[in-house]
């Protein structure tokens, strides 16, 4: 199935993907696809990485790509997934800094 994976536009922790269009095997579970994307992004296992369908919901990680495609594909024939981490909290007027250092995390090879 044809999948487009995009970074949430306000995402600050996670790096961008080098490419966004993927051809994925039908019976691959979403959880495995998520692992593939995590590896591409060099994420530590303790970092959050959420895939949302059509910018709305968290799909069941056990669903296969085919099931997701069947239920959520766009008119243009692609399945759209957005990835994001979590927001951080603090008070802006006290000069807190938001996170950028995660980008520098070395890739475990």
């Amino acid at each position: 199935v044809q999948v487009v994976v995009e970074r949430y536009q306000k995402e600050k922790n996670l790096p961008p993907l080098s490419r966004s269009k993927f051809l994925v095997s039908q019976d691959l579970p979403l959880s495995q696809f998520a692992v593939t994307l995590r590896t591409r992004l060099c994420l530590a296992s303790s970092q959050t990485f959420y895939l949302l369908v059509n910018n709305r919901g968290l799909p069941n990680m056990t669903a296969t790509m085919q099931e997701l495609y069947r239920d959520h594909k766009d008119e243009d024939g692609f399945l759209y997934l957005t990835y994001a981490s979590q927001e951080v909290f603090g008070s802006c007027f006290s000069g807190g800094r938001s996170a950028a250092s995660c980008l520098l995390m070395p890739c475990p090879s």
Partner: protein
Amino acid sequence: SVLSRYENQITILSDYLEEFPETDEPVWILGRQHHLKADKSKLLLDISARLWFTYRRKFSPIGGTGPSSDAGWGCMLRCGQMMLAQALICRHLGRDWQWEKHKKQPEEYHRILQCFLDRKDCCYSIHQMAQMGVGEGKSIGEWFGPNTVAQVLKKLALFDEWNSLAVYVSMDNTVVIEDIKKMCWSPPQSSSAAHSSTHLHRSALGRNKNAAGFCAGWKPLLLIIPLRLGINHINPVYIDAFKECFKMPQSLGALGGKPNNAYYFIGFLGNELIYLDPHTTQSFVDSEENGTVDDQSFHCQQAPHRMKIMNLDPSVALGFFCKEECDFDNWCSLVQK
């Protein structure tokens, strides 16, 4: 000057304090149901019994030369402390334990409070949490998200021999029952750290029960589930399920907030969430010579804050506490429904 600007904000915030409305709807607080008309005072007692951690100033500088106040940056860390403190209360005193002003409290209570004093030698102090955050890519004074706090608590719990908690932080929205059972049955000392979530395909809430029968006994489980319930705003389809979590007897509430402000959510009334707010700056309190702590400033004795659930930021972390294995089995069956 930063501080004084900040204190202006506090007075604005305290204007939000509102009495509860007259209603027949039940209030849910951490797995307990209350009726406003019948026993409002019981509800308020239940809320004031929770340990309330806020910004503090005038503690010893973090790392020797760092900040001596966490105003403006520590709110999510304080919320994490509150959730963990609630777990320790459930462990040692029970969910139904009540706090009363000026009353002599059990020894365990003071011991719990000791764990959270703003001193570098207390195991869950702001010092320990901020410094453990460095390993998660957060420099001291940087803002945390719910997952980062959960990761920090998980690491700090390994050094806490008194409580020997098993802390499980779910990744990718998935709770692996087998992993939890293994972790809680593993003998103490053998560190349950470095718990990677690689076998994802044995996914959530399945029927895999495989209790390895160690004689060491079940370690009390703190289960934290970081989630993202939408992209910009919370997706309305999750609201009922989110509220349902506060009804579960294992509930420790949720970490989250609205943009920039972290709150510790402990319950709801209708479409409003009830929370403890860390955004008040108090002075550092140390323990007395006899090991007790003047605890007045560690309990919120006003009517608590409320906010519309639709204003919730989608980044949250749910917390649950399972003292015994049967509590966890019960949790699994509740979640499956």
